[in-house]
């Protein structure tokens, strides 16, 4: 990521980062593309057709072997196979994107692929305001293969090797968590809420709850800024700071001391609870008190 950043200067080399940043999510879902959501059915049918075609293609390897794939590592070659069966409908044959359907994936990097595919957001079931987390379509190995393919195709940010949470003594970890908390509240809480439960954005978009995301997914999300999430490059949040944020997010999932948190949705659920539980119980009690004995 670092190397991809533009040097100070008017838009120097800005073209490439711009391309990979916009490529991450389905840009077509902006205001201009809203009407296309109606095409969802058509897209689903064509996806099914593509899948069927892909299955056929995998039984007939000779057909796809027209391109030169010798430059790819074996893993990437496997990834390409998967890509050609499942992704080309929206992202095009060489991941250069299909206008109105899916963005180009050149330069998005392995991190982005891993985030989108491992969280089940890609392949998308249908065109909608925002891709939803669901059960992943590909298993872990396949995801890595796909990521490898996209990485070798256009480069881009990658998730580093090694642990993704701070290491060290218990005290050091505690300090890291506290620092992560400050970073989280400043940079993440405004959309994902202070309790990591997720919040609404404009026009049907939303910041999802972070709880279901794995360490790698959180890391990848910060690094690549999927969908409408801003990018937090390594110059802004260093890898160490990213680890601290992840540690804090994990702390937030721990048991709370004050009883059930009711989804940590704040005063709205508290207001509901006082009427649905407190008031209701007491009104029933008063019905009983004044009832005929």
């Amino acid at each position, binding site marked *: *990521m670092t190397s991809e*950043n*533009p*040097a*100070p*200067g*008017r*838009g120097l080399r*800005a*073209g490439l*980062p*711009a391309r990979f*940043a*916009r490529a991450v*999510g389905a*840009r077509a879902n*902006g*205001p201009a593309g809203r009407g296309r959501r109606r095409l969802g059915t058509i897209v689903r049918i064509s996806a099914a057709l593509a899948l069927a075609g892909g299955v056929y293609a995998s039984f007939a390897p000779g057909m796809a072997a027209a391109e030169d794939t010798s430059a790819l590592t074996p893993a990437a070659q496997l990834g390409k196979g998967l890509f050609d069966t499942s992704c080309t409908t929206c992202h095009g044959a060489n991941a250069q994107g299909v206008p109105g359907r899916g963005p180009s994936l050149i330069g998005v990097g392995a991190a982005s692929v891993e985030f989108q595919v491992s969280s089940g957001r890609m392949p998308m079931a249908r065109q909608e305001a925002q891709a939803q987390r669901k059960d992943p379509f590909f298993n872990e190995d396949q995801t890595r293969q796909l990521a490898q393919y996209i990485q070798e195709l256009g480069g881009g940010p990658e998730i580093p090797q090694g642990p993704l949470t701070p290491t060290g003594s218990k005290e050091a970890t505690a300090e890291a968590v506290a620092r992560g908390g*400050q970073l989280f509240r*400043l*940079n993440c809480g*405004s*959309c994902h809420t202070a309790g990591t439960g997720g*919040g609404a*954005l*404009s*026009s049907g*978009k939303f*910041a999802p709850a972070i709880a279901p995301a794995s360490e790698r997914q959180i890391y990848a999300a910060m690094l690549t*800024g999927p*969908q*409408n*999430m*801003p*990018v*937090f*490059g390594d*110059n*802004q949040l260093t890898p160490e700071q990213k680890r601290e944020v992840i540690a804090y997010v994990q*702390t937030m999932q*721990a*048991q*709370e*001391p*004050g*009883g059930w948190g009711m989804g940590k949705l704040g005063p709205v659920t508290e207001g509901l609870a006082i009427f649905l539980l407190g008031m209701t119980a007491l009104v029933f009690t008063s019905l009983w*008190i004044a009832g005929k*004995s």
Partner: protein
Amino acid sequence: MTATTKEHGVPTTAGPGHEDRTRFETMRDGAREDGIEIVHYEPPFPKTGTPAERRLQTIVAGLFLSTGLLATAFVVIYIVWPWEYDRDSLISNLYTPMLGLTLGLALVCTGFGIMIWGKKLIPHEIAIQERHDGPSSEHDRSVTVATLQYLGDEMGLKRRPLLGLSLLAGLAPVGAAVAAPLIGGMIKDPHKNVEGRDDSALMTTAWNTGIRLAREDSSPVRPEDVSVGGQITVFPDIPGGHTNRYADSPTLLIHLRVEDMDRLRENLYGINEGGIWGNFVAYSKICTHAGCPASLYEQQTNRLLCPCHQSQFLITDNAKPIFGPATRRLPMLPITVDDEGFFVAQSDYKVPVGPGFWERP
């Protein structure tokens, strides 16, 4: 109703003994003196020792005993349960729930015990009390009015008008004297110029020409620190710049994509011209509606959303409000890069930041 009284009125069957009976009658006659007629009085268990009565007695006693047990449990838990906060320990996290559970159930048991006693074991009754509302008697009213009028005569205010006037003139300033320090101590002139500036705090922020844009840890920001499609909250690089002392100064520095920046360049209006640097633009983080940080940056739709009242600002059009209750654009902080390659402010904001107020032009 009277029929019921005859049937159930005084308990005559077994149960209350002779003495109780007279006591009941004394009580009833006393109530009558107060305008209260007990028209129906019926012990729930005219015969003592029926199984139903014994069962109720057992239930009530059981509830009271459970109260005792639960309250004891509360005290024991309060004392011996590991209460010190340890986020990894389920036991410690259960301290508050256990306290609530034992105390709550103890109280609920007492409540139901008392209530069943009152509801089921004490004689049912219907009593009628006469209301005596409406105005006082004509006599009382006229006498009171006369008394009040005579009070005026006694004071002689009519005869000696000077007294009343001077009293009024003398006391009014006393009221003001009481109010002055109470209220006056709090009053501050909101339009007083800030030190070193020729405008009030309402109109200015801590930003000024040449002040660097710094992170919350006071480290200055370079253009390469923010990725395309990224944003960073920056504060004026002055002592305490990131603290609440300068609550109107937090600023959002955004790195736009080329085509989005082109659109912004086309749209730049009047005071914002020349305020951007490269593909970077900085807007006040303080919402022009109610002052919350409008910090939900959507990097694809280029909107800034304020989570308090959902005002949405279009970054590519001078942060124009396009949805929600906000009426004003987010002010743009004119920025540039200094010789060392760090972002600095060209000047303070050109318009007051934050929510509107009466004196705002």
